């Protein structure tokens, strides 16, 4: 059934379809409509689970972790400062191997205080051990939340599903809401282990020595790397049942391209138009959308980009003192290859600053004509590019 929904409300619909048992959340712009819609659905019985009004994001995540250890399906959502505030608990969630799904609505992290879209809030959580999936629009967000539960409950790792604040979160688009029975088939209510077994009492996460610490971390690392296969499988199965699939990356027109544009989230839509316009002018441009950020999709990135001469990355995020985070990761992924493209890093669209297809076209033309790839990122600011 197709309805007009904001990205935030599309995520709330996914939570309903997934029959989530426990939700704990704290309001923050621009995530609030997810929280409000879920509260409404719990109050009118459309969601049967427990909803806990938390007094902070830190507490919300704490409650999600312990509820998940008790074996129920858990959801939370946050943004920006809220994600930063729960940073400690994000490590706890992945280290305790819980199957939490969290929707993250990307928003700048202050200071300066601001509200627009920027992925630094979630990307700066890249080392917390969470699987991270970046979505382009509301439909993808809804579908990805459903897939995320299947993944989280298979590999026992928490999953972040991110959308761009205000763009995807508030923009109203036609969204196909899958049939509840079909979702039940894809994601049956699961009997997850209750790790508080009264008959065989265990002490979860007591203090470990250095040997055990490394052992636990190594296992978590290996399982996170292996999770990619589960994510690919979940996406394929979703495609079979619902007719939509996304891959861990999406490659478009890269085979013969002179330059490949790499980006993520809502910026992908602008890059699609830029690519199309340039192709119509006979300029060979391709596009790689990165959906999966952790575990990093090394194989897919190498497969689609290694043979190109030039790649440009547009990051709506910044790691001060270094550069755009996707660009940096991409360079790292390809460094040891004998043949690799020159990589041009651009930072733009911070705090939701407009970054229209025309600007992306200009960037692509600049890269085609400029043979020296920059060591440092190039800023696209105020559309002066």
């Amino acid at each position, binding site marked *: 059934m197709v309805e007009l929904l904001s990205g935030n409300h599309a995520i709330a619909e996914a939570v309903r379809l997934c029959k989530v*048992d*426990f939700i*704990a959340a704290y309001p923050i712009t621009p995530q609030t409509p997810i929280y409000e819609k879920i509260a409404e659905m719990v109050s009118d019985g459309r969601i049967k*689970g*427990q909803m*806990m*009004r*938390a*007094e*902070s994001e*830190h*507490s*919300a995540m*704490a*409650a*999600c*972790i*312990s*509820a*998940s*250890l*008790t*074996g*129920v399906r858990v959801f939370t959502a946050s943004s920006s400062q809220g994600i930063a505030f729960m940073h*400690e*608990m994000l490590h*706890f969630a992945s280290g305790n191997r819980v199957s939490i799904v969290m929707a993250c609505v990307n928003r700048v992290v202050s200071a300066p205080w601001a509200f627009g879209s920027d992925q630094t809030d979630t990307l700066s959580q890249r080392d917390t051990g969470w699987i991270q999936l970046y979505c382009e629009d509301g439909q993808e967000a809804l579908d990805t939340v459903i897939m995320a539960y299947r993944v989280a409950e298979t590999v026992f790792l928490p999953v972040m599903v991110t959308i761009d604040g205000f763009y995807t979160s508030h923009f109203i688009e036609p969204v196909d809401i899958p049939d509840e029975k079909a979702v039940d088939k894809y994601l049956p209510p699961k009997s997850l282990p*209750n*790790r*508080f*077994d*009264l008959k065989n*009492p*265990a*002490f*979860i*996460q*007591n*203090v*470990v*020595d250095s040997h*055990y610490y490394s052992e636990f971390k190594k296992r978590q690392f290996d399982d996170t790397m292996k999770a990619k296969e589960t994510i690919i499988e979940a996406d394929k199965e979703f495609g079979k049942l619902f007719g939509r699939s996304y891959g861990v990356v999406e490659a478009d027109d890269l085979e013969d391209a002179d330059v490949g544009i790499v980006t993520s989230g809502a910026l992908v839509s602008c890059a699609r138009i830029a690519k199309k316009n340039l192709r119509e002018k006979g300029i060979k441009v391709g596009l790689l959308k990165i959906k999966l950020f952790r575990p990093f999709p090394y194989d897919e990135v190498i497969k689609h980009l290694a043979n190109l001469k030039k790649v440009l990355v547009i990051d709506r995020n910044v790691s001060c003192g270094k550069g755009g985070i996707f660009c940096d990761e991409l360079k790292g992924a390809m460094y040891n290859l004998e043949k690799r493209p020159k990589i041009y890093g651009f930072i733009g669209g911070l705090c939701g600053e407009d970054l229209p297809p025309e600007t992306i076209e200009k960037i692509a033309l600049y890269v085609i004509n400029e043979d020296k790839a920059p060591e440092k990122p190039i800023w696209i600011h105020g559309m002066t590019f």
Partner: protein
Amino acid sequence: MDTRDDLLRQGHYACPGCGLAIAMKLVLSALGERTIVVIIPSCEAVISATYPFSALKVPAFHSAFVIAAPTAAGISRALKVRGEDDITVLAFAGDGGTYDIGLQSLSGAAERNEDFIYVCLDNEAYMNTGIQASSSTPFCSWTVTTPKGKKERKKRLMDIIVAHSIPYCATATIGYPEDLIEKVKRAKKKKGTRFIHILTPCPTGWRMREDLTGIVSMLAFETKIFPLYEVYDGEIYRITKMPKGLPVKEYLSLQGRFSHLKEEEIEEIQKNVDKEWARLLYLAKRNAENCA
């Protein structure tokens, strides 16, 4: 007591004479086996043993410092989803984790009346990290971060908790185990947020002999420094045991952390204690029939 049935096993990691371990043992024995325990970084975490061992005979989860209360709330709500209503969720936290860093999250859970028992094991400083002052450290007490004695008074935590109008709050000390056990059992019978504040002397941090834990616990009560009472629904006060009202000096003089005290400081402590006691008596007398 038959220690074979203890839910805190022998061979735990507590220091000799640890009041906290005694309190844990008493609380767990009062609650029984159908209990899930939340522990946060504290002496409790160390006492409960390091991986792969456990000194606890019930399921337990060691979570982060700030969040004993919401962690317990997550479990108790999940148990309701699972239809397992007869399990007690218990949070053990120290004074630092309760008075200081964990107060916000405890307040949030208490306001929502989340269904669990929260036990604050109060040894009046950050003992696990090496005797630093907390907001529970008493006036004039020595700690490594108050080397000349703490200038501020101990935070009146019970008043803050009572202000949430939760079904049950109580104070207890290991000096009176029967009183403590009764209170835990009373708390177990109720639903919603229940809070028990237990004074647990620490020979290491209090700079006293290891065999004085019990005596000092009793003296804290008999000098009215730590009165034993209950508060129902944030309103009805009930003093559960009447102290003799011994001079505070008898309590203070046994502990090295107060050895630097001057006469006028002892007098000031006595004055504060008398004032607090008068206040408690007033609150309890409003419900005269409940005053023992």
